[in-house]
């Protein structure tokens, strides 16, 4: 793929995405807005994964963001956009404080701790009735932009562009070097002068910030937040599956994965009203087995092999 196409493609994709609402009816927009929410979460999760840290706490920071936005909208009458920004700040703040303690953990222990923290956030919100509305949740007086389908799509797209923008920024900056080194070998990274804790904190806070923002957007989209809806385990496991099926350690991977799983879920539901989730589970299993590197990962590997063949080297398995 020549350099020009590589530069032009992202711009084209964004253009198509921005113009999509002008040609589509409210139903595809409603489906798309939900897919965009999961897409932004998948990209934010992948950003942290580039450091080797696996987070199971997406739903936790997503939920904190949702509740921060709901509470600020209801109590201090914050405007929707302000409440979304406050949501991001709140999640980032919580991540920053927790980071000092949990960023020393690695692999399954970090994953479990983030999973446990997400559950603790849910139980706190669930039981802190008078401040958070308890198990029945909070209802906002109105939706952002008075619920206009196109505007809701654009705000969700804004969340995705924020996530992809930060992700691309990370890929083009020293952060890519630092996170890749940390992921590959921490001892070698430390002896290259990389302050591991600092860079882990930067990427952990940034990905939590995005998850908070997207949580805030979710509440403004549906005008409602309850412990079981915004802390739902699906907001952790689906973005994970989307990033893996799409291709990890990249921005396009999770985006592709979100489109694949999102569209498949809705399409299957219409075609096989009873039992579409069985096929959905089987699709996840098949794609993981046939494309271990994910769609984009497989594509990237074939490009690299072709380039290597052109240079006379052997195609490395």
């Amino acid at each position: 793929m020549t350099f020009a196409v590589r530069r032009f493609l992202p711009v084209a994709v964004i253009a198509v995405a921005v113009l999509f609402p002008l040609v589509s009816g409210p139903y595809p927009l409603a489906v798309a807005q939900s897919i965009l929410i999961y897409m932004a979460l998948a990209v934010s999760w992948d950003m942290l994964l580039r450091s080797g840290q696996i987070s199971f706490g997406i739903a936790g920071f997503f939920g904190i963001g949702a509740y921060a936005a709901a509470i600020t909208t209801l109590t201090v009458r914050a405007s929707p956009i302000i409440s979304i920004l406050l949501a991001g700040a709140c999640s980032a703040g919580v991540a920053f404080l927790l980071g000092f303690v949990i960023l020393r953990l690695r692999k399954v222990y970090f994953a479990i701790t983030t999973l446990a923290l997400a559950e603790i956030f849910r139980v706190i919100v669930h039981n802190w009735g008078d401040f958070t509305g308890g198990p029945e949740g909070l209802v906002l007086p109105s939706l952002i932009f008075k619920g206009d389908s196109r505007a809701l799509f654009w705000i969700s797209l804004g969340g995705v562009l924020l996530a992809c923008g930060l992700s691309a920024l990370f890929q083009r900056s020293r952060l890519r070097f630092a996170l890749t080194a940390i992921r590959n070998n921490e001892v070698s990274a430390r002896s290259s002068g990389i302050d591991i804790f600092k860079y882990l904190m930067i990427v952990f806070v940034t990905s939590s910030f995005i998850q908070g923002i997207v949580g805030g957007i979710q509440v403004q989209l549906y005008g409602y937040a309850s412990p079981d809806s915004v802390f739902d385990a699906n907001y952790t496991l689906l973005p994970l599956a989307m990033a893996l099926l799409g291709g990890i350690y990249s921005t396009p991977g999770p985006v592709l994965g979100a489109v694949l799983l999102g569209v498949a879920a809705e399409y299957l539901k219409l075609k096989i009203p009873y039992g579409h989730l069985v096929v959905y589970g089987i699709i996840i299993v098949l794609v993981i087995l046939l494309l271990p590197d994910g769609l984009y990962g497989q594509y990237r590997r074939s490009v690299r092999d072709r380039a290597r063949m052109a240079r006379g080297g052997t195609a490395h398995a």
Partner: protein
Amino acid sequence: MRIVVTRPRVGPGRMWQVVLWTALAAAGTAAVLLWKPTALVYGVQRAGLYAAVAIPMALVLGIVHIVNLAHGELMMVAAYLAYFAARLLGLDPFVALVPVALVMAVLGLALYQVTIRHSLKAPELNQLILTFGLGIALSQMVNLLFTSQSWKLSLDYVSASATVGNISFGVFDFVYAGAAIALALGLRLFLTRTRLGKAALAVGQNPRGAAIVGIDVGRTYAFVFALAVGLIGAVGSIFLAKQAIFPLVGGPYTMKSFCLVAMAGVGNIVGILYCSLALGLSESIINSIRGYAGWSNVVFFAIIIVTILVRSFRERKA
């Protein structure tokens, strides 16, 4: 995620720690006994259930090094098998325990050969999402066949009760504690006394080294996975006796087992008994404080985080 199977070694330096912990535990138990004795009974029963469900997952994670997110769903499938054995063949769940475990072991072997075996070389995340997909497929297939209707056997021995003074409480749930202890000790003996068990332990600790000395690593993985699914099948059959079953019953148990296994340290099967006891008791005590029952989950997860952090601090110092 090659993690060595760790066993808590009580070195001289740590003896006073052990003494301190047991003294603390004894004082705590006495206090609770006076205040609300049944909290202890139900704490032990609850711990038994958590441990019995978690141990087979620890076996898989410790030896085959994969996180099986379909663990709870496999227990659910076994419970459905036991339900049909009870309804159609009139077998009591404890009688159906062995046949169900065998059928599940075969199903586990088939699942392993068809799916998991091909993703072993991939990073552990792939196996995680693979089993996540398997879990969805299994639970939704059962939902498609039998709807989300919940089924329950009504066996009278399940509400057997004992009375101490004026307090009477259910005793059936001690079966879970018995099953957990049997599983832990049985596996401990299997892994350290039998040839096949020692081979499995070796594969768990160093697959390449085991292969060099002639152990067929692939076959050991398949055997251990099938064994684990068989064991969770047996637990599923016992589970059916007291609990209602429905397609999504497995999910919460997968997550709790996953947390317990990580808390006990990967591969530390006996450690799971201690951890689930700590969790069961603390949950039960908080649960019995009027008005704070909702907070018992926070205790569960808080203890897990603290244990993981303490172990990482201790490792960081060593």
